[in-house]
């Protein structure tokens, strides 16, 4: 089959472009370490979340020196916690979100960041993020249609200076080492 010289050049350039795209994504995954939401959050029974060891009492837990876990239940049409009272976290900390749904499919997006996941009943979305050292107020929106009140489903997340941070029902002030780590610079 005869292929025109120009066309051969074009095909070569196209394949190069494709390989380049794949290399970029691969660098993002391997080099920059951007991991995808995957199956590591496990599954839950969406109808019995109130008996679940974590999701029965959603909220913030400290799991490491400056590593926090946030358990969030998405339901028509609130994030618990997040809607009404902002989720509060120390600025500069590493945060793992565990998000699931007690009813329909929702979305969980911290606006302007790549904390962006689907929330599917039966599955736990596990997303780890590092928050900048600069305290900031972030918006959270549900980005998947979930019913007639979908446009009301939003919340806030606030990062505060570590010295001002306290865990409800836990130690009032994070330990000194944790603070030193955060001040220590880049993560």
């Amino acid at each position, binding site marked *: 089959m005869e292929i025109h010289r120009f066309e051969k050049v074009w095909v070569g350039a196209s394949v190069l472009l494709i390989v380049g795209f794949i290399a970029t994504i691969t660098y993002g995954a391997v080099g920059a370490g951007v991991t995808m939401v995957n199956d590591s959050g496990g599954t839950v029974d969406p109808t019995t979340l109130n008996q679940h060891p974590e999701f029965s009492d959603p909220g913030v837990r400290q799991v490491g020196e400056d590593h926090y876990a946030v358990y969030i239940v998405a339901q028509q049409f609130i994030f618990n916690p997040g809607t009404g009272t902002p989720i509060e976290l120390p600025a500069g900390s590493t945060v793992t979100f565990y998000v699931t749904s007690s009813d329909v499919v929702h979305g969980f997006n911290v606006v302007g960041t790549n904390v962006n996941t689907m929330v*599917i009943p*039966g599955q736990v979305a596990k997303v780890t993020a590092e928050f900048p050292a600069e305290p900031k107020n972030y918006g959270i929106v549900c980005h998947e249609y979930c019913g007639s009140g979908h446009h009301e489903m939003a919340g806030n997340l606030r990062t505060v200076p570590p010295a001002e941070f306290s865990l409800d029902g836990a130690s009032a002030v994070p330990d000194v080492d944790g603070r030193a780590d955060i001040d220590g610079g880049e993560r």
Partner: protein
Amino acid sequence: MAFADEFRTTREEAATDTAGEAAFVERYPFESRWIRYCFAVAFAALAGGGLFGVVQALHRTGIYRGLISSADYYTVLTAHGVLMVLVFTTFFIAGLFLWANTSSLDRGVPSEGVTKLWFGLMFVGTLLAATAILGGFTDLIPASADVLFTFYAPLQAHPIFYIGAALIVVGSWIAGANYFRTFFAWRKDHPDERIPLQSFMVLVTMLMWYIATLGVATEVVVFLIPWSLGFIDTVDPLLTRTLFWFFGHPVVYFWLMPAYLVWYTILPKLSGGQLFSDGLARIVFVLFLLLSTPVGFHHQYVDPGIPEGFKFVAMTNTMFLLLPSLLTAFTVVASMEHGARQRGGSGYVGWLRALPWGNPAFSGSALAGLMFAAGGFSGMINAGMNINYLIHNTLWVPGHFHLTVGTAFALTAMAISYWLVPQVTGRRLGLRSVAAVQPYTWFIGMLLMSNAMHRAGLAGVPRRTAEPYQYQGAEIVYESAFGSISGIRVQIAVGSVLLFVALLMFLAVMWDTYMNTRGGDIGVSGEIPPALSGPEHSPKVLDNLWLWTAIAVVLVVLAYGLPLSAMLQDGVLSPGSPGFPVSLGSLWPF
């Protein structure tokens, strides 16, 4: 629309093309009639879908909210999506393919009854689904289907919505079987010939469609219909989503491949020339058959419950799916240039001026192709697994697919109707001056709307939301990198109004054409000149449809076998979710 035949005039003479040959409608009156019916349903869906589109755009941008409540927004959105991407596309493609297969094989359908059957199934399916959707507006219809066109469980629509959608798909299967029966009959008479290019494209597209629709058919028939009827209590939302997206990406190629058929086989002729290479066109379609389906996980990059490895495989497959589109860009532009030079064009870019930009069939198809190039590149961002985090489920995504299905397909369909409808009605195109500017109106409207939607998405504005700019009880700030958010909102609204105007122009042209006198010179010719490099220069194995189908099935099994069996490990229906019926109980505001 047989009712109108009585009061419209018919010339004594038969309809002829510009060369004086009998028009398609004279040679294939039965096929022409059913093509007209398909187009009538398609254009009605386009009209309804377009009206819902502009209402929705004005509402969500906050420019005008007087027509609907925010709860009704989702009914409008469902209707817009289903009418556009399920009804308009499927019916238009059924008509276009019936024409392309008949005309390129020069052979009518083997059975008239089967044609009536598939059309009837698709039509009844449309009525059922539309009834359920419109039930969202009024309590008079005891049904509701505000589940959007992706109908993710466990949001639950009325059973007639799922049954209607299933009938449309089953109807399209039977339509496909009829194209194959025509082809087999042709093959008996022409045992050694290459499959004519248009028929080849129709058949390959339908093979892709059969593989792709297995996913959605399983989702709807095995799970959603029994669940909505109460025969089973729960479904697994991740499993049904995965089955949906098994179908949900190849379906976009089901819309695109007919546009490619037009760009490869008709656009070169409208440019004044011939297709550059028949063999390359066949290779492109085979690549689509092979690669369209094993990529569905790229719609589920941020779904929990799916291991990262499967997402990575889908990413690489998706990137290679760029190849057939890049090949097409070359061949189509080269064919256009060839045509322009036949018309006296010269220079490196000067030949562009020699193209028939005043012919809406040409300008619409060419502008659609141009916009598809932009859509292809925004699609690469969607396909870019970890880059996708930034724009997943933001307004970027509908911005992207309004370039692809909303322009590459829709504008090509409208443009080629200016050329095809005269051939299947035997009437000259009406309102030619309106038709001449219609593609440009659409193009400018889409340029404004889609560009602004992409930028809004980059700023984090979510899609599928009635009021993205005024959440109550939460403070949401979008930081736009390109232009202000208020400017973006105005551009989306203005773009949508222009698109609606372009749609009305198209419908007016179609109506005026339909009202023209039948017979005489119809002003177009359906003759397709042969390719510069014909099928005799390409390997025969390209026409081995069964080989390519078998490889496509193997690729699908490789991409989906493991992840689907992992999802089924804990039981087919678990983790199980009971249904959450959508019932808005709102009242029609008028």
